[in-house]
C-alpha cells in the first residue's frame, strides 16, 4: 500500500489545488509516471508517483485545494490481488465536473495560466495556438475580453521565498574571475564538426563544472532543515529560467554530473522549454540542491544571488567578456566570466567557499574531462 500525497514544491508552499487526475482507479502506474496536475503559485505542475502499483482510490476531487502532505490517492502493489476499493472520488470520466480529455496533454504557459486566473478563464475550455497546441496569453485574453487584475501569485511566491531567505540565511559572498578561453575553444572546435542541432552552449560547460564542484564539496548541495545540514540526495542543480514576461522558476536538472555533455545539453533544452511552456514536474520543482543563475545574456558582468531556501548556495555567472589577461609575462586577450557564490554561513565558511569556486575554475581548465 502506498499513499500519493500533495507534494511540497518549495519552502513556502503550504497548499496546492488538484487540477486534474490523469489516472483512474484500477490503472497500473509506473514509478515516476505523471498521474496528476497540481496548481501552485508557480503555475500548473505535473506530479509523478514515487511508487509503482495499481490505483486503488482517488481521494480528492479536481478543483479542491488541500494542504501539503494530504493524501490524494492510494495505490496498492501490483501483486496484491485485492479488488479496487470503492473510490471516494469517481474516475475522471464519471465525475460531475470532468476535465475534457483533450486537456490531458495540453500545455499552458505560466504567464497564460496566471492571466487565466486573473480573468476567470477556464484554460481547459481553450484550444491552444502555441507550439504543440500550448495555450498562450493571447488565447486566454481572446477568450476573456481582458480586464487586468493585480493578482500575481508567482510574484508573491518569489517575494515570500526571497524574504525568508534574507530574513533567515546569513549569506556570505565570494566571486572569482575565470579564464574561459580553453573551455570555449574546446567547445567551438567540437561544435564545428557537429550539425547545428547537436551543438553545445557555454551554459552546459558551466553547469557541469558546478556539478563537479558539488560532487567534491557536497556541503554546498546540502539543505538546512531543523537546525542541521542535510546532505544532498543527488547532484540535482536548479537552473534559473526567466519567464521573459516576468517571474522565474528554478527547475532541477537531475544528476548533472552524469552522462555526456550532449546529454546534459538536451536535458537543459528540455527543462527550459517546459519551464516556459508549462509542463514541469513536481520533482523538478522540489529536488534542486543548489541553484545556478546566469544574467550574462544581457551583458551583466556579475550577479550575487539570493539563496533559495532551504538550499545552501547559489552560483551566479555573468557575461562572458573579452578582457586583457595576464598569462606568464604577457598580456593576452581572453574571454573571461565572473562566477560568484552566495552561501549560507551556518553550513559553510568562506575558505570552503573559495575552494568551491577554485574547483569550478579547475574543471573549466580541462573541458575534455567534463
Amino acid at each position, binding site marked *: 500500500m502506498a499513499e500519493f500525497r500533495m507534494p511540497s514544491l518549495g519552502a513556502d508552499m503550504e497548499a496546492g489545488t488538484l487540477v486534474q487526475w490523469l489516472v483512474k482507479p484500477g490503472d497500473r502506474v509506473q514509478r515516476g509516471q505523471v498521474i496528476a496536475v497540481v496548481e501552485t503559485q508557480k503555475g500548473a505542475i505535473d506530479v509523478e508517483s514515487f511508487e509503482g502499483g495499481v490505483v486503488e482510490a482517488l481521494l480528492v476531487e479536481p478543483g479542491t485545494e488541500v494542504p501539503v502532505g494530504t493524501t490524494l490517492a492510494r495505490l496498492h502493489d501490483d501483486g496484491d490481488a485485492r479488488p479496487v476499493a470503492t473510490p471516494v472520488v469517481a474516475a475522471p470520466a464519471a465525475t460531475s465536473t470532468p476535465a475534457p480529455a483533450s486537456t490531458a496533454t495540453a500545455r499552458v*504557459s505560466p*504567464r*497564460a495560466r496566471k492571466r487565466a486566473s486573473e480573468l476567470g478563464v477556464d484554460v481547459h475550455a481553450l484550444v491552444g*495556438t*502555441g*507550439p504543440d497546441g*500550448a495555450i*498562450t*496569453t*493571447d488565447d486566454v485574453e481572446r477568450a476573456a475580453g481582458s480586464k487586468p487584475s493585480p493578482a500575481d501569485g508567482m510574484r508573491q511566491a518569489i517575494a515570500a521565498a526571497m524574504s525568508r531567505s534574507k530574513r533567515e540565511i546569513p549569506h556570505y559572498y565570494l566571486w572569482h574571475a575565470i579564464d574561459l578561453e580553453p573551455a570555449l575553444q574546446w567547445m*567551438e572546435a567540437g*561544435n*564545428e564538426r557537429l*550539425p*547545428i*542541432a547537436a*551543438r553545445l*552552449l*557555454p*551554459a552546459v560547460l558551466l553547469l557541469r563544472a558546478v556539478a563537479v564542484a558539488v560532487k567534491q564539496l557536497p556541503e554546498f548541495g546540502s539543505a538546512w532543515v531543523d537546525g542541521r545540514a542535510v546532505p544532498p540526495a543527488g547532484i540535482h542543480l536548479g537552473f534559473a529560467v*526567466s519567464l*521573459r*514576461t516576468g517571474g522565474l522558476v528554478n527547475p532541477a536538472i537531475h544528476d548533472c554530473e552524469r552522462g555526456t555533455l550532449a546529454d546534459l545539453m538536451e536535458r*537543459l*533544452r528540455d527543462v*527550459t*522549454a517546459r519551464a516556459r511552456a508549462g509542463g514541469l514536474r513536481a520533482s523538478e520543482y522540489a529536488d534542486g540542491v543548489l541553484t545556478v543563475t546566469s544574467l550574462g*545574456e*544581457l551583458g551583466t558582468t556579475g550577479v550575487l544571488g539570493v539563496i533559495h531556501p532551504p538550499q545552501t548556495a547559489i552560483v551566479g555567472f555573468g557575461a562572458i567578456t573579452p578582457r586583457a589577461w595576464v598569462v606568464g609575462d604577457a598580456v593576452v586577450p581572453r574571454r573571461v566570466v565572473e562566477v560568484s557564490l552566495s552561501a549560507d554561513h551556518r553550513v559553510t565558511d568562506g575558505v570552503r567557499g573559495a575552494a568551491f569556486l577554485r574547483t569550478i575554475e579547475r574543471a573549466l581548465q580541462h573541458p575534455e574531462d567534463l
Partner: protein
Amino acid sequence: MTADTTKAAILTLLGRITPDSDLSQLRGDVPLRDELEIDSMDFLNLLIAVAGELHVEIPERDYGKVLSLDALVAYVDARRPRAG
C-alpha cells in the same frame, strides 16, 4: 522567392519560440536578444529551426553576423537554396 518570403518564414519560426511576443512591433535592426529577451538557448533553437525549415545551417563563427532580424533575413536569403 524573395527576401519578404524569407522574412515571413523566419517570423513564423520566431513566433513558435516566443509565442507571447508581439512580433508586429519588432525592430529589424535591433538585436533579437534585446527586442524579445530571448536567451542563447532560444537563439540556438531559432537557428536550428532555420536550418530545418529553410535549409541554411549557420556556423557558430557566424552567429555574430545574424543577431538582428534584418541581418538574419539577409544572411539566410543570400544562402537559401532556390528551386531550379
